[in-house]
């Protein structure tokens, strides 16, 4: 609660990080977050004169674009702000700063008709399939509401036909076997497919999938992810795939963006981000993920994610970073380009005199990382 909790917003415009639309027919993004910032007020505590109101810096100056027919993964740990960003894109919370653009148009649609117009195009899929269905309503009841909302004027039989069609699309056949049930009578995988069906009812341009498979069994994750990919491709929709599993991002997303403590620290094509991770945090994340195929030593880390009420100055990763320099604590880095479309917010990649040893290249930090043998590697 010091006076210096003002936001360390980097001066100068950050470039749209995922601007390089390689392999996409339409280079214009469907949905964009432009310098989006979200602060949540902290409840409790007596407000004191002269000090700014305490806030949680949940999302700080994030710029991210989603393109038609492509999956963009947003990777980060819990509390990194990735789910908040998805909800900001869905307009469930008001923004503190920046803007959300849908098809190039700035959106401010928090309530009423405008909000409904927005969510018709942008649909959110939540993590826990068991919690995201009303336990006292049947599946048909829940889906009926979504269909009634997005197909106004349709009546009984039409709606049933629409629901049957939705269930067929998500491979739950025969549909009538599922619609009469209550959520607790279905498995997690089936319910997650049904929440995808609920989102499909709106025929949206963008899916925001918040950890859609994290709570599912391993053997059925793949099926749900493949379903999401098929829907994205068939409908030429854009998808934001929020996950903490960077390995799945490698397999399912065209682009991957990594968040740490509310900021986007690295973004680019998934293969580049996972195989030539540039930011030290991304490297830590990759080396922490369980992977029996790995032979290299691990990056050791004993730190904790910082408090977002009073985040570290400069680069928010600097207290944990093995390569931290003096300027890291003073100045927040801008995104530096590593290869076309691949950027990292890290001073190691600054092309100026102030960074020692020039740019160490994309693999340099990783190779020097093994200072101690990891006992976990068997």
């Amino acid at each position, binding site marked *: 609660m010091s006076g210096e909790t003002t936001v360390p917003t980097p001066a100068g415009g950050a470039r749209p990080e995922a601007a390089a639309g390689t392999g996409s027919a339409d280079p214009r993004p469907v949905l964009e977050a432009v310098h989006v910032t979200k602060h949540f007020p902290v409840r409790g505590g007596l407000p004191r004169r002269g000090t700014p109101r305490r806030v949680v810096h949940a999302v700080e100056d994030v710029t991210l674009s989603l393109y038609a027919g492509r999956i963009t993964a947003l990777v980060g*740990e819990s509390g990194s702000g990735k789910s908040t960003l998805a909800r900001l894109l869905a307009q469930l919370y008001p923004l503190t700063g920046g803007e959300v653009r849908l098809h190039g148009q700035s959106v401010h649609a928090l309530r009423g008709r405008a909000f409904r117009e927005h969510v018709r195009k942008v649909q959110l899929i939540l993590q826990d399939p068991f919690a995201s269905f009303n336990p006292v309503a049947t599946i048909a009841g829940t889906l009926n509401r979504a269909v009634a909302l997005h197909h106004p004027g349709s009546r009984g039989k039409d709606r049933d036909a629409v629901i049957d069609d939705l269930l067929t699309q998500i491979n739950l056949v025969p549909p009538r*076997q599922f619609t009469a049930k209550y959520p607790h009578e279905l498995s997690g995988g089936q319910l997650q497919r049904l929440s995808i069906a609920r989102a499909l009812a709106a025929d949206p341009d963008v899916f925001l999938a918040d950890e859609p498979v994290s709570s599912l069994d391993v*053997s059925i994750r793949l099926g749900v992810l493949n379903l999401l990919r098929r829907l994205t491709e068939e409908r030429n929709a854009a998808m934001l795939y929020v996950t*903490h599993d960077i390995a799945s991002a490698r397999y399912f997303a065209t682009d991957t963006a990594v968040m740490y403590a509310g900021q986007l620290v690295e973004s680019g094509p998934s293969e580049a981000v996972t195989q030539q991770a540039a930011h030290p945090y991304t490297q830590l994340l990759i080396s*922490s*993920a369980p*992977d029996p195929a790995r032979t290299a030593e691990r990056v050791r880390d004993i730190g904790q994610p910082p408090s977002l009420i009073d985040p570290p100055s400069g680069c928010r990763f600097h207290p944990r970073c093995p390569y931290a320099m003096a300027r890291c604590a003073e100045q927040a880095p801008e995104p530096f380009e590593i290869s076309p479309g691949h950027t990292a917010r890290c001073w190691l990649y600054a092309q100026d005199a102030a960074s020692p040893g020039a740019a160490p290249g994309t693999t340099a930090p990783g190779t020097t990382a093994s200072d101690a043998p990891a006992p976990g590697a068997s």
Partner: protein
Amino acid sequence: MALQAAALAEADAPAESSAGPARLWLRLLRSPLTLSGVIIVLIFVVLAIIAPWISPYDPSAVSDTTLAGPSAAHWLGTTQNGQDVLSQMLYGARASMFVGIGAAVLTTVLSVVVGVTAGYVGGIGDEVLSLLANVFLVLPSLPLTIILAAYLPHSGSLGIILVITVTGWAWGARVLRAQTLSLRKRDFVEAARATGEPTWRIIVKDILPNQVAVIAASFLGTVTAAILTQASLAFLGLADVTQWSWGTILYWAQTGSALLTGAWWWFVPAGLAIAVLGTALSLVNFGIDEFINPRLRQAGIGTKKAQRGQVRAGRPRGRRHRTAPVPRPAPAPFTQDSTDVVLQVRDLRVEYVSEGGRTRAVSDVSFALRRGEVLGIAGESGSGKSTLAYAITRLHKPPAEIARGEIRYTAPDGRGVDVLAMDEAELREFRWEELSIVFQSAMHALNPVLRIGAQIEDVIVAHRPRMAAPERAARVLELLDIVGIPADRASSYPHELSGGMRQRAMIAIGLALDPEIIVMDEPTTALDVVIQRQIIEKIMELKDRLGFSVVFITHDLSLLIELSDTIAVMYGGKVVEMAPAEDFYRHPQHPYSQGLLGSFPTLGGPKRELTGIVGSPPDLRRLPSGCAFRTRCPHAFDACATKVPELLQVGEPGARGTLAACLLHSVPETTTNELATGETR
């Protein structure tokens, strides 16, 4: 009970057909108590409605037969003025029911509107409405009722309804507001918002249906309270005593000195009617929750499961430890050739007993845990892995039952113990001293109102009552240091620690008595990968240093391969493959293991094709015949449907290696070529 619910919920499958509304009514009526409640209430309602037509006399009409006992002409006797008590009772039921239901309807509507609006809207609206409710709550309701009733003596039943509503709505509003606040944060409400539903529809469709139980309970409670209040006011003469109600009958009986003259028939029926109706309403109230909530039987599973370990750990011991703990031999690194078995499980079978029969959750599982070994048990929901963990610690509760099998623990001094033969006292000693458990959800397993240090100390106090306080405090600090929690954190409450810290605290509690075996049930599933890595490295470091053995249960096969010495894969309650971790990773033998390994996206190396497994995990209550995996198996052939595969050695006989339960391996001529196509890498 909770454990069964957990297992059945894990094994959830589409097969159970839904109970329609008609069936729900049947379920309600099958409960005899609820049914009798409903019938009694209905009888009173019907009598009240048809009272004018069935009353033998005008209730106010005087006659010459005064103070006569029950007779054929006057079933319930007559009053001092010769009025018929039965007729008065019937007309009285009308007034009492009208007041009861009228007041309950008004009160409930008011509290629902205020409570739900305040809870859902939030902000200023919430504060104003809550303030209003609080003001009404602190009004002393009894004097207020009397005063209001005194000022409205001739407004009849309506006045009384008004009085009861004014004094009674605030409490219900508070409860409903609190419920709405918690419901508003639930995912399904957020999902409905994200679909773009208007607020009023979310309230009507999502919030209210989930509150029906509370609303119904408060409605029925208010009916009872209103009937009682009305009777009391009338009895005190504060209501209109010329209008017949049960209270008025009591009032006239009192003024007519019925008690002194022994005219019991004058006041007993009214008193009895009030008591019986109140009881009936309570009976309905008890049954209503089960009727309304379609998943009541599965509520609150996760927390109970985790709490139980806590309760057991903290339970004080009945008697002193028999022998001083034997110092463990210096930890030696584990090798696959080791034969120093610390826990031997043979043919363990765990069944859940229910009305519908016995469900086999763990089916004839055998394994040997050797000293210093990390045995990883992998499996999906409903595979029986958690049931197995509970069974080997004997923390399973009825209706779970160990149907057969043997669990043998060998202490460091070579003494063998039959775990299944232990009585309660021996079990308490065995748990935590020899074998401890670390649960998945540290937040739930730790007591939120006790400091971390105190919780660790509790375990020591329970098992080492003789240990002096300073020695104990030193041990707590030592344990915190072992798991890497700074000493000053000992005085923190669980919510003040991060998820990783809490899990470390759980591990510290597990280590408190220096056990031989630690069973870890998904200890890192709720944690982020970076924190998970820290915890895993800590566990491995401690294992090497202290030399305990670990049974590690998780669904994350990649993690398991990294940290385990030996891996057992469970499917449908059986171990389908058991092998040294390295062999398992390089050459998985069972098609299910191959499918699992082929489901994991990899980070290192070139991208490979992910194959996955078709279908969903099976329902333990309806396992396929023969091999449980055959419906999802890409290599299934005819014999799989009829023959249950045994867990047999794969490869050359004599060599220690992989055990697999698959017919592909027991039919020599098909083994090689079938498997060649089954390999995913």
